């Protein structure tokens, strides 16, 4: 709150005070050429271990435990005394910084790795504006369907290859007294998960047009998505969205999944350790499949999410920061990061992570999957933040889909008419 109401000098004093306090309490800093700010406090050791492999630079890595204060601190610092490197959110969530010229163009580094065949050019899509790439990935995640293999085994089901097979599985799971698909709108943001999934399963081109304001929320494709969603809820294939997201105890979607009360849930691959933490074994008791397209002849596709690391244009140590980005894109850094985090590697030379994630990435790479940017990053933040509340209203009352579509279009119109 204080950051909101303080003035320029006061903000700087507060910022220095907070940063100093964090450095002292976290006991993680060493004098270095490259500073890195990030908001994933739990990853601190992994950042340190990976960057320790860089022989050219030393690092001062500062974690922030609260996302809002992190965002405020980074935004305030970008014109004054920014860190060399900082993590952020992809797509439209980084566009403001790009438009304001506050982050460095990293295209030359991408060109180097893409031309040598070490990195896929597709990966850069989430960080590209006007043909230039402004970030490298710290996190890569795909959004497959998690399914409970114990339930599948008990009911004699097999992994669905088509939309019809998947719906047939849902019917049998429902008949067994379970909920086929878990969904949640806890914390607002998860409301977009099934909205985007239903859209891309019918018409991924339309989805991308909708994200960019070239299509409307009142178009028939959106209505079809809502109607499919509604029919699933009406049939009792999905729960009411009221369960919490991921706690392993209590009334949460993940806990219901691990007990087999809920047979599927659609979440990013970063959720894997939480699922296993719920008490069921990866591979043996739970696995992944990618939701099939409604039309089997369409190119297979999957939602992906990328978390960026950016270089501040006004950083004092910009050259060292650019060198650090070069190191980050290397096979060595990518292999270490994957080994520690189990994320899909950004460098194709690095080994895939073990287990289900590795198999999924192999399937995506070998199967020619179209990788589609997640709603949260693919559409302007102003639309997305308001849209998740509207979509939540649909989950609360599926019969309201027409009003929701109108409201979504009003939100989109307000944004696109001014931008």
């Amino acid at each position, binding site marked *: 709150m204080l950051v909101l*109401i303080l*003035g320029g000098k*006061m903000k700087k004093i507060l910022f220095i005070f907070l940063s100093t306090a964090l450095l002292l309490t976290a006991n993680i800093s060493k004098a270095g050429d490259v500073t890195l700010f990030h908001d994933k406090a739990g990853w601190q050791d992994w950042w340190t271990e990976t960057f320790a492999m860089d022989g050219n630079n030393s690092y001062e890595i500062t974690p922030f435990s609260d996302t809002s204060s992190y965002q405020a601190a980074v935004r305030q610092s970008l014109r004054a005394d920014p860190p060399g490197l900082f993590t952020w959110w992809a797509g439209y969530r980084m566009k403001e910084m790009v438009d304001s010229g*506050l982050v460095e163009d990293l295209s030359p580094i991408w060109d180097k790795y893409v031309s040598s065949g070490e990195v896929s050019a597709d990966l850069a899509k989430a960080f590209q504006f006007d043909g230039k790439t402004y970030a490298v990935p710290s996190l890569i995640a795909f959004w497959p369907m998690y399914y409970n293999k114990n339930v599948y085994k008990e009911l004699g089901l097999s992994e669905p290859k088509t939309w019809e097979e998947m719906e047939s599985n849902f019917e049998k799971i429902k008949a067994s007294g379970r909920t086929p698909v878990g969904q949640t*709108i806890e914390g607002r943001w998860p409301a977009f998960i099934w909205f985007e999934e239903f859209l891309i399963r019918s018409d991924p081109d339309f989805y991308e047009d909708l994200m960019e304001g070239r299509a409307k929320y009142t178009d028939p494709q959106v209505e079809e998505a809502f109607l499919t969603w509604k029919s699933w809820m009406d049939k009792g294939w999905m729960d009411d969205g009221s369960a919490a997201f991921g706690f392993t105890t209590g*009334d949460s979607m993940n806990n219901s999944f691990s007990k087999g009360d809920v047979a599927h849930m659609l979440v990013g691959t970063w959720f894997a350790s939480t699922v296993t933490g719920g008490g069921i074994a990866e591979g043996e008791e739970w696995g992944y499949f990618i939701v099939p397209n409604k039309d089997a002849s369409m190119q297979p596709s999957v939602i992906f999410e990328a978390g960026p690391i950016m270089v501040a244009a006004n950083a004092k140590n910009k050259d060292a920061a650019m060198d650090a980005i070069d190191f980050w894109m290397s096979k060595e850094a990518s292999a270490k990061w994957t080994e520690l985090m189990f994320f899909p590697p950004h460098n194709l030379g690095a080994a895939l992570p073990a287990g289900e994630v590795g198999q999924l990435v192999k399937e995506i790479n070998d199967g020619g999957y179209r990788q589609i940017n997640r709603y949260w990053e693919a559409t302007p933040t102003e639309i997305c933040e308001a849209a998740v*509340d509207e979509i*939540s209203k649909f989950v*609360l009352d599926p019969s309201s889909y027409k009003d929701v579509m109108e409201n979504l279009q009003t939100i989109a119109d307000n944004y696109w008419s001014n931008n």
Partner: protein
Amino acid sequence: MSFLKKDKNQAYFYVAPAVILVGLICIYPILRTLVMSFTDNDGLNPAKFIGFDNYVRLFLDPNYITPIYNTIIWTVFATVFPVAIGFLFAYSMQFLPRSNYFQILVYLPATVSAAAAGVLFGFILDKSGLINQILSLIGYDHLVRDWLFRAPENTYSMIGAYTWQTTGINMMIFIVGLQGMPKEQLEAAKIDGAKGLTLVFKIVIPMIMPYFVIASLLALINSFRVFDQVWVMTQGGPGRYSEVLAVTMYREGFVLFDLGYAASVAVLISLVGLVFSYFYLRSVLVKEDVGN
């Protein structure tokens, strides 16, 4: 040092640290917020002066109807319940032996942080939480519901949690008031036949009315700017159905980084709080004058 030899100058010296602190961490940010509310500050680009645009937007935006409505609901019920129940407890305690223990029990929730209380009630009000378990146990299954997921139940549930936490403070205010009440007038009323509710409504409450005014205004100020409980329990959702103005301010400021607009919401909340505070301070100061 001759400057400090004069009594008047010494007084300035003693007051200076407090004045500097209040100026620095209270007055200055308030003025900065006021200035910010007339700009398009986004925390990233240089802010431009846009006049009253943020305020016009605030009053024309239909999205604000629900937060304003919810804030009114909060202001009314989160004032009435804690004050009324606080008085009820304070009055009843007079007749209880070893009432100190009960006072501690009722006051204890006030020592818990609002965020911690929010987390606690998040579990209690959960679909499989304590409230629903009790309702099932006593045969009221038809009342079992997801208290934080449906509107308006979520707003009233949160007000319930807030009441649990703030009743103790009001009880303490009323205990002080009741202890300071002249016993002669009370005895005289009893001799004249006043008892039960007549005694409470016609004699006791009028006699401690200044304490009612103080407790009510304090509760009004706090409930109008409530944030922690709502943010922790529902984040104003689902679908913004439980959002209050302070949550709106936070969303605009720290989710969308429309800091100028968030500042205008902050100014609105502060202005209303200022009006309540004026009456509150006037009541307190008048009471102190009477005491002197």
